């Protein structure tokens, strides 16, 4: 036992001598007002970090150059270099600090100092002066998205009472927030704070306006970017902004922090993180419309170590298991053949294996039979049906806005693309660069669905980029990097799509127009069409804007790749590496970033080949883990140390019931035998599909599809016609089994193989035989009731 424990620990943790380091490792104080808070970060036994900043003794080799406070705050004194040292528990660490321009003249910048003060102290938040109508006659732009307007509001409106250049101390900008005179918003800061000093000195300097030459924030850095911490520990975060003039500044004071998972960690306004539970959380940072996150991890505590038989099979496994080790999780066992087979069929093709397929697979001695069955599955017609259905969800195929032939043309194009395994980048390019008849080129119906430029911009970003832009329609996204300006630059890419009537009522002709723009609602003029963080296109260019968009979308575009990889991953593993799976924004971090990045890179390297991606996932040992937890991973629902149990989607479940009973569902207007997953439309009447959470395909949103159990689902399978009629059908499998006159044992074996992809255990056979014997009066009814019970049990309703 002791040996096992030891082995386990060596695998999981890295015992090393404790060490201490200072973060950040390089510090340059470039202005007389520059400050830098340092962190003394210890790395203890077992790879756990500890924040010693407030316990360490700080000293400077030359306090005349750079002084350091008791808490580790460095201030510049004179140009030169000094070494700052932190000491604690017989350990020490040093960092060199360079001081420049210490004696140079300095003025606070409106954009880079005054605005951050207004933002951090809440002046321009939505509930205060950032409201659309301002507050009490004073209006700022929400979280400072327009410095020019804000400057104007502060210095020119209200008879210059807000900023009083003659008597700076009498400026309302200072009197109100310090509560020297009544202020609805209460006390925001006191007169002895840095906030006060920034505003007061800026006014005293003549309130210089924002200028083109002001350095822009180009990015953020956070320290420590990732740390493994003890339960109940605290950790200070430090954030630095990089500017276009090459300098970096400590902006921790002005950053807005929030925790993605308060069950693991909370964070206060100063960036102090408190760990509250086990697991991992991201702490997201927002500063000047730039976002970043830091990761904090608290390993699970395991009393009883478990030996793992986990054998990595590809890079997914190596990266998944690195995460398990850091969290002290042991993966579950590999799933048995029956479980694997059922899971693979359901996840890749939305069907159950037949009894024959189960028997053949179980009997196959080949060591690579799982890989072989995966290859076969990816080439089945049902594979194409299943993924065509999923992509129809994504692209909102339905007869709600499309006439029936147009809907079919769109659907058929999707299905053909899936069947041909069209690379995902080409799939997207085909949609956005095509022109002509929507009947001949079904993909073009995406434009018919989205005649409104705004709707197009928002659904495209959701479907192909996993970004939610909606907030930025009216103002800068409050917790995201997207600005209102970017929104209208982006939307303008779709302002020149022409649609005219084609040869028939259901046919349209899509073409690129060479005029037309969408105005920015406040500037009242169009902005250069620009993809998100991409290159702008001249406003007067007559080139097809859609092509510019498609080129950007499909070439070296992380959002584009991560979006589809995450969607496919979630289909197989039950949860996106980023969750929810359609929300891959910058502030919603992956549960395993290294894994996510590697899968995405592999997908690009293999030419955006969806089948390659699926094959890689399905062949990983991680995908093939059992859903049964061990002593270490019961609480894990995020890191894939066991397979996540999921209810079958509405359409898959209905088809599975049809398959086991041998009675297809009749869908009005569709040929007999059409499976639910073959429907191109979600407006086909089906109470079963509606109550089990079929999406309406109105909004591109993962939440449209629901898999939560409900009373109405239970009522429908108990009393509704869908399942009951299948059971009683004289053409169905139950009737057939009766006609064949098979023994009870054979019947049970067949039912278990078809419904559960496994033979019944002897105790199950015995139990069910007994139950059936109680229903002697009618064997038919007895069997119906038995099949009902099998098809409403958890083993049937769930994929495990």
């Amino acid at each position, binding site marked *: 036992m002791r040996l096992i424990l030891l082995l386990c620990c060596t695998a999981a943790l890295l015992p090393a001598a404790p060490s201490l380091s200072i973060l950040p490792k390089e510090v340059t104080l470039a202005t007389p007002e520059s400050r830098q808070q340092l962190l003394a970060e210890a790395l203890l036994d077992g790879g756990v970090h500890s924040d010693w900043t407030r316990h360490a003794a700080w000293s400077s080799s030359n306090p005349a150059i750079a002084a350091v406070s008791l808490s580790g705050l460095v201030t510049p004194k004179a140009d030169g270099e000094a070494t700052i040292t932190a000491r604690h528990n017989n350990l020490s660490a040093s960092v060199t600090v360079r001081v420049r321009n210490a004696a140079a003249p300095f003025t606070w910048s409106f954009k880079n100092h005054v605005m951050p003060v207004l933002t951090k102290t809440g002046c321009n938040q939505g509930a205060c002066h950032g409201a659309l109508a301002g507050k009490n006659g004073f209006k700022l732009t929400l979280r400072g998205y327009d410095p020019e307007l804000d400057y104007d509001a502060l210095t020119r409106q209200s008879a210059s009472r807000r900023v009083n250049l003659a008597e700076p101390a009498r400026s309302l900008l200072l009197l109100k927030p310090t509560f020297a005179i009544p202020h609805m918003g209460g006390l925001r800061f006191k007169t002895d704070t840095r906030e006060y000093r920034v505003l007061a000195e800026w006014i005293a300097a003549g309130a210089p306006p924002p200028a083109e030459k002001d350095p822009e924030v180009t990015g953020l850095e956070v320290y420590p970017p990732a740390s493994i911490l003890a339960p109940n520990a605290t950790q200070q975060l430090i954030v630095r902004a990089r500017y276009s003039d090459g300098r970096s500044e400590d902006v921790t004071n002005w950053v807005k922090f929030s925790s993605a998972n308060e069950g693991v960690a909370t964070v206060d306004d100063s960036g102090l993180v408190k760990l509250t539970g086990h697991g991992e959380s991201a702490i997201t940072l927002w500063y000047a419309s730039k976002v970043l996150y830091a990761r904090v991890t608290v390993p699970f505590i395991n009393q009883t170590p478990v030996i793992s038989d986990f054998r990595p099979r590809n890079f997914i496994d190596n990266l998944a298991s690195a995460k398990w080790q850091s969290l002290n999780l042991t993966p579950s066992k590999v799933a048995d053949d029956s479980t694997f087979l059922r899971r693979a069929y359901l996840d890749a093709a939305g069907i159950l294996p037949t009894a024959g397929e189960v028997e053949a697979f179980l009997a196959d001695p080949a060591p690579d039979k799982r890989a072989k069955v995966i290859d076969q599955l990816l080439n089945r017609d049902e594979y194409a049906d299943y993924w065509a259905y999923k992509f129809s969800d994504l692209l909102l195929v339905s007869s709600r806005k499309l006439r029936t032939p147009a809907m079919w043309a769109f659907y058929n194009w999707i299905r053909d693309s899936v069947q041909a395994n069209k690379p995902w980048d080409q799939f997207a390019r085909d949609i956005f660069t095509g022109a002509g008849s929507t009947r001949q080129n079904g993909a073009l119906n995406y434009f018919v669905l989205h005649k409104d430029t705004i709707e197009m911009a928002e659904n495209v970003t959701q479907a192909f980029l996993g970004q939610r832009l909606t907030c930025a329609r009216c103002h800068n996204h409050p917790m995201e990097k997207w600005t209102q300006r970017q929104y209208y630059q982006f939307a303008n890419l779709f302002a020149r799509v022409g649609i005219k009537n084609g040869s028939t009522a259901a046919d349209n002709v899509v073409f690129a127009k060479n005029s037309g723009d969408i105005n920015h609602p406040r500037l009242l003029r169009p902005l250069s069409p620009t993809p998100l963080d991409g290159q702008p296109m001249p406003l007067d260019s007559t080139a097809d804007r859609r092509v510019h968009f498609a080129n950007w979308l499909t070439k070296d575009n992380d959002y584009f790749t991560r979006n589809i990889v995450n969607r496919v991953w979630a289909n197989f593993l039950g949860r996106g590496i980023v969750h929810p799976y359609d929300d891959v924004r910058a502030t919603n971090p992956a549960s395993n970033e290294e894994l996510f990045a590697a899968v995405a890179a592999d997908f690009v390297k293999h030419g955006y080949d969806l089948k390659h991606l699926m094959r890689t996932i399905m062949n990983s040992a991680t995908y093939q883990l059992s859903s049964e937890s061990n002593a270490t991973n019961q609480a894990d629902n995020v890191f894939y140390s066991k397979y996540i149990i999921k209810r079958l989607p509405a359409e898959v479940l209905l088809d599975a019931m049809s398959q086991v009973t041998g009675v297809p569902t009749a869908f009005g207007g569709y040929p007999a035998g059409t499976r639910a997953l073959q429907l191109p439309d979600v407006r086909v009447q089906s109470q079963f599909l509606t109550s089990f959470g079929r999406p309406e395909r109105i909004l591109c949103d993962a939440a449209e599809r629901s898999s939560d159990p409900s009373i109405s689902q239970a*009522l429908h399978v108990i009393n509704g016609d869908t399942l009951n009629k299948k059971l009683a059908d004289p053409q169905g499998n139950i009737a057939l089994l009766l006609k064949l006159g098979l023994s009870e044992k054979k019947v049970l074996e067949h039912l278990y193989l078809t419904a559960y992809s496994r033979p019944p255990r002897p105790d199950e056979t015995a139990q069910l035989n007994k139950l059936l014997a109680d229903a002697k009066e009618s064997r038919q009814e007895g069997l119906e009731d038995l099949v009902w019970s099998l098809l409403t049990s958890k083993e049937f309703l769930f994929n495990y």
Partner: protein
Amino acid sequence: MFRLDADLPVEFCDGTRRRDFLHAGVLSTLGLGLSQFAGLKAHGAVDPKKDVNCILLMLVGGPSQLDTWDMKPNAPIEIRGPYKPIKTNVPGIEISENFPRMAKHADKFSIVRSMYHTAAAVHDTGHQMMQTGRLFQGGVEHPHFGCVVGKLRGPKGDVPPNILLPRPIGATGGNMPHGHAAGYLGKAFDPFILNADPSDPNFRVPDMLPPDYLSANRVDRRKNWREAIDKSVSKFETSQDARLLDSSFQQAYTLMSSAKARAAFELHREPEAVREKYGLNRFGQSCLLARRLVEAGVRFVTINMFETVFDEITWDIHGSKPFSPISCYKDLVGPMFDMAYSSLLEDLSQRGLLANTMVIGTGEFGRTPKVNPAGGRDHWPQCWSILAGGGPLKGGTVIGASDEIGAMPKDRPTTPAEVAATIYKGLGIDLETELPGAQGRPIPVVDRGTEPIKKLFA
């Protein structure tokens, strides 16, 4: 044996039989006079203090305070808008001319005119706060009031404790949860969602009874066999979704086996005149259904007046498409609310149910004091009005006040958290009660120190 028509009276702690209680609930159809009802009440069949229910009317879109219940007739035209105030049956209280029926029942409700919230001015945040008392942050989804009641009190009789009519709020622009669910309490405490339109001529809760070709005997057998099959497989024991499936089957069987529970949903049992009085539309019939459900033992009913604010005429009067024009308060939304709300109050009161049923009506925010260029009003969480009455809450008073243009609370600023505290106190739930949060972290029903609106309590 599983009996579909089992109708055994359930005995209450105080000795009244459930049967009697329900009969008391439908007294008007039995021709029982009000004085006789009062007699029943004196005997303890209805104890308003012990068992208070709540009907929460979510006025999705956000009614304009200035065009509904906080008129500013003396403000300039661009503030006061197109409507005039009218007197109510309570001297000194005036409301908009769009609500003439409501005006006759002002003694049954109070108006809080100083609501505000400080979150982003989007619909979703207000929905969260007005249904849970809190804004969702850091991945924590707080539970709806009704889910908390369901968790703490459980069902009363055979009906679910917490029902949502007719459907959850859909997209309102923010892509955030709206707060109708149980959040960290777990899906087991999610509301029973009707998911049907009670004004549909063929309205019924689907599949409440087995089809003709299935005998009660077989339904019973299937239930037992399913349980036996499930029991022989252990791998689902730790899955929350799987446990939830069990509980939804259980609740379905309970509903099926109670004739009274089923009857509560059968709106066609109501006289045509009553149905018309509430308004033959989704909201009106939902209010009528809510009354029936409360009578049958449902503790909390939430009614979403609308499901979205896009391409539907709602309280969301931006004045331009796809939103609604201000005139809809006169033509459609106003009368719809006026009929349903006044009928609900009248009906509850005549049946003696108002004494133990709170009725709260609230939007997610108010609207801009100044009429915008499109002739509408935009989002304004800084100030709005809500309606509260029934149960232990006083009627006929005005709590708080807004400034002269309805832009800011002037007197007793009131937050959604305080409304939450008021609802919990009204329901008789101790405000110190702690709920199990994520990883077992206890979370009080309202943040410590949050006070209910004391003046609302008689």
